[in-house]
């Protein structure tokens, strides 16, 4: 793959659909793989009412059939088509062309926090590994009638985080791992801090994950600069409603001298230790090595 910008004017059969394409638009796509790559310009006729993914698909169907891109629902519900459009992490299916300046090329590059596989497709297995390291939901027993009772007000908070479509844009934008690769081993990232907040706030859950969140999930690495919230396509208030409340809960468990003194004086037991919690996290089954190098990913 040439690393220089080259012109690849696309011919299209869209003339049949659109009476007279008046203007054209240029997409500057990053093409390449682990051996390197570069930005390539594709010029296509501008059509009304399209999103970036529509244009990428037109390029794929005409001038670049082997252009690798992930997508599924094309409706902002599955979170597959994450990329960086003009440098901003966004879903391609939720970025209308009309919101972008069309007199200059529109740059579309893969998420830059994860290793590239090809073109716009990245290896997001980091996220699945972290997901497996989260201590599972542990509810108490059901009521006598075989159901659970929960008040709506008690689940509103967790429901906000369950809107997450796992596009991993927040993981991508988070400088803790974007700019500091080493931290991937020590940091769950905004998506999974929100997942942990969901579990901590779940009215039926009985597990205390606070020390685990601090010691294993690395909440202390977050410096709340709110980029995760800024890029969230579901408008989840990740920082204000998930991470900061978790930080405060961690303070309760670890840094609050009054609470510590109270526990000492009243002889209350401290919360379950991280290792005790880790025993229920599948991370420790160490399934990670099984498929590495075989082209597959652990779940």
């Amino acid at each position: 793959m040439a690393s220089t910008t080259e012109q690849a004017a696309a011919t299209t059969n869209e003339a049949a659909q659109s009476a007279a394409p008046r203007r054209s638009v240029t997409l500057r796509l990053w093409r390449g793989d682990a051996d390197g790559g570069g930005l390539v310009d594709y010029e296509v006729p501008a059509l009304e009412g399209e999103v970036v993914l529509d244009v990428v698909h037109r390029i794929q169907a005409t001038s670049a059939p082997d252009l690798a891109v992930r997508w599924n629902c094309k409706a902002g519900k599955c979170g597959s088509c994450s990329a960086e459009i003009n440098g901003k992490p966004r879903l391609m299916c939720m970025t209308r062309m009309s919101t972008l300046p069309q007199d200059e090329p529109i740059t579309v590059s893969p998420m830059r926090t994860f290793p590239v596989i090809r073109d716009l497709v990245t290896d997001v297995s980091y996220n699945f590994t972290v997901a497996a390291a989260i201590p599972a939901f542990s509810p108490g027993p059901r009521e006598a009638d075989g159901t659970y009772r929960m008040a709506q007000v008690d689940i509103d908070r967790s429901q906000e985080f369950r809107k997450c479509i796992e596009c991993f844009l927040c993981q991508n934008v988070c400088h803790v791992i974007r700019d500091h690769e080493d931290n991937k081993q020590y940091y769950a990232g905004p998506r999974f801090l929100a997942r942990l907040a969901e579990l901590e706030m779940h009215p039926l859950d009985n597990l205390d994950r606070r020390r685990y969140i601090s010691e294993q999930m690395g909440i202390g690495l977050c410096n709340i600069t709110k980029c995760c919230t800024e890029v969230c396509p579901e408008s989840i208030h990740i920082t204000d409603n998930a991470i900061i409340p978790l930080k405060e809960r961690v303070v309760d468990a670890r840094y609050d001298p009054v609470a510590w003194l109270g526990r000492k004086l009243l002889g209350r037991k401290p919360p379950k230790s991280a290792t005790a919690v880790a025993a229920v996290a599948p991370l420790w089954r160490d399934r990670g090595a099984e498929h590495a190098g075989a082209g597959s990913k652990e779940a």
Partner: protein
Amino acid sequence: MTVVEETPGAPNPNGGVAPIPVRIGGVRGGPPLRKILRRDTWWLQPALTALGLLGFIGYSIWAALRNGDFYAGAYGRDYLSPLYSPCLTHSCTTAGYVWGGWSWWRISPAWLILAFPGAFRTTCYYYRKAYYRSFWFSPPACAVPDAGSTAEGNGLRKRYSGETRFPLILQNIHRYTWYFAVIFAGILTWDAIAAFRFPNGIGLGVGTIILVINAVFIWAYTLGCHACRHLCGGGLKQFSKHKSRYWLWKNVLTHLNEHHQLFAWCSLFSIIVSDLYIYLVASGTITDPRIF
């Protein structure tokens, strides 16, 4: 790509038992990280924030060094500057809290007073975001490399440890600074009430209005604090068992919290305006118009 069990020389900053077995070290796609692809004016927000914060710091240093003209009692107004309240060293006759006449205190009392709200604001979740972005460049804006970016091997800082080590681990004491902030908000409220006292009874001056607005902003900022929101109700697992705390959490604190940034700036400006106005009145530069 290999599964990394441990990276030699990279201790877990969290103090936990083992790293998460993720793969690290793959080749990143796209143009190099240091190449900023954003086309918007991403630098504007951190620049304005830096300007605003530096402006405030500069002003409060000047105001603290001034060590005078912070009480307008000489002109028949019980106006006390928020930067000098409670009144420790001065004779503020009727206004504010007079703890003082600390004649042994040699330097400006503003330094002592500023320390408390200063600690509150320094550890505030909003201000942290603001100065981490504007001064630390950590990061200056989203999808812009931070000053310590090691992804391309040219970062200024070797390792990023966030708020896991001294001194930044002290950010966790935010809730204690909040307790003091509540006391100070109470004092400033008293100052605002005291500002209605005129030599011949109750009155209202422009300064009164300024001090009332200041008190309102201070409360809006103090109650919108994330630690306050947590202590009031956010830390609860089941709201349905704590009706009144839930009500307060949902209907008051959450709304204030959503505008924490706004009130952080409003209260900062109102403090400056209050102090400046009182200085101008107390130094005889202007006369405070009485409305009734």
